[in-house]
């Protein structure tokens, strides 16, 4: 599964994207965030306020409880500030 990061989430994680093999039991966006935070302090820092970081599954906005089964690309980013 491909993970991509944007704006200050990207800066805190320290990379633009990565491919990950998920262990069993990671079923939702929230599970994925919890697993990422266990991988190191850069992830802990990026997701220190989980309620702020947004996610998208295959280019569609997704809530923490959204299932990630079958997803090709999951993105994490701060609230949008375009326009």
């Amino acid at each position, binding site marked *: 599964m491909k993970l991509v990061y*944007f704006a*200050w989430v990207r800066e805190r994680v320290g990379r633009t994207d990565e491919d990950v093999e998920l262990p069993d039991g990671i079923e939702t966006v929230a599970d994925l965030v919890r697993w990422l935070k266990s991988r190191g302090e850069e992830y802990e820092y990026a997701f220190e306020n989980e309620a702020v970081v947004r996610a998208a599954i295959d280019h569609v*906005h997704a809530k923490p409880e959204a299932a990630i089964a079958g997803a090709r690309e999951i993105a994490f980013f701060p609230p*949008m*500030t*375009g*326009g």
Partner: protein
Amino acid sequence: MTVSIRIQAEAFDVAAETAALTEGRADIGAVVAFTGLCRDEGGRLTALELEHYPGMAEAEIAHIAAQAQDRWPLLGLTIIHRFGKVLPGDPIVLVLAASSHRRAAFEAADFLMDYLKTRAPFWKREHLKDGTAGEWVEAKDLDDEAAQRWL
């Protein structure tokens, strides 16, 4: 119904975009053009840098545009959003909504801007006068409230 959506680094030409939407037609009675420009925040900024999520930006704007078409009887729609570095005074975003009557054009443009602000995957970072990269612009509660008017 003409819908044109573009994500680009280059500036845009509002007059040319409007002409493309209206030329040769006699059914359009109202065109609302919204242009969002880069401010220098009282001289504090030398530029804004816009990061975006390629692929999702196009998809999300197409989704927002489809919602606007469902809600209002539009005769044409153009949405252009820039990415990369923009200087104070430069245009960042253009929304053009054409309809027979003004109410639909006004409301659709207003709706599109509220949704672009809160749902299109773009992020602004400040570049400061002293040459350093500044902070990422924080999302405003006001923008979320504005978007909620349409629910």
